[in-house]
């Protein structure tokens, strides 16, 4: 029988992989994708908890997380575009100044 713990472990694994990507990869786009991965992992634990409690409030929270992720993707990708235009590089180590 697949219980709540199973889903929580999968979500922990996805979150850990996302953390690994943010810390290890240096490409700004890939770092950004890993942040989306972490948001997804959190969503999954929300949905698992709400399924095994029989309520639907976790679904609403996951819905809001999705909206925030979409907003974040729009602004973040605009920032990445700007970064690439001014620096000709996507390396997050080189982007250490707030100005040009």
């Amino acid at each position: 029988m697949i219980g709540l713990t199973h889903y929580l472990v999968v979500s922990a694994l996805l979150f850990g992989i996302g953390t690994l990507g943010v810390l290890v990869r240096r490409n700004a786009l890939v770092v950004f994708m890993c942040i989306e991965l972490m948001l997804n992992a959190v969503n999954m634990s929300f949905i698992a908890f709400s399924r095994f409690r029989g309520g639907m409030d976790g679904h609403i929270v996951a819905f809001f997380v999705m909206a925030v992720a979409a907003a974040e993707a729009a602004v973040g990708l605009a920032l990445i575009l700007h970064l690439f235009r001014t620096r000709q590089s996507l390396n997050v180590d080189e982007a250490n100044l707030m100005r040009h």
Partner: protein
Amino acid sequence: MEAFLFYLFSTAAVLSALAVVLPPHPKARAPIHSAVAMVLCFFFVAALYAMLSAHLLAVLQVLVYAGAIMVLFTFVIMLLNLQQDTVDKPEPPGFFKMLGGLMALTTTWGLITKFTADEFLAPISAQLVDKLADPLHYGNLQDIGRLLFSKYLLPFELTSVLLLTAMIGAVIVAKRDPKTTWIPEAVKQLTYRERHGKHVEKGTPR
């Protein structure tokens, strides 16, 4: 059957998530390979949502994440015209990369030991149910919509403000600023020729 599907989808999700971070092939280091692996991962996570009877969120996951957000990523990758990844060179990991990997590993290990401990779910074990009371209506559009427009009306309306703000912010940030934008010399000459006719002599002052 449920256990088989769960293990199938969760293994596939974790493996494709790993393919986002650690490229399976040394030549597959470009961001577009990570993006494709990411879309795959989103599909498997959507399958897991469907197994949790969150039908609406499974559909939204495919539409919003695998559809909209990843298409946005692909647009940016195409716009930047990155043939190959010049950032993440396959070199032996340095001290900080090792430290980062160690930190991620300990985070994952700590989370898993916490979740699998017996006393973790003890405080809410009285509320946990194995079978849903109304499996046909759980997680469908109608019930979530009703909840969204009654109990969570204010956050829902605030979400629209957030999305509008993000839209305006993205347009302002991504707007091309001619003073700071780096333009290749060839493109500069091309635009000059387009503006001033095709036959420009070599010594023409620019």
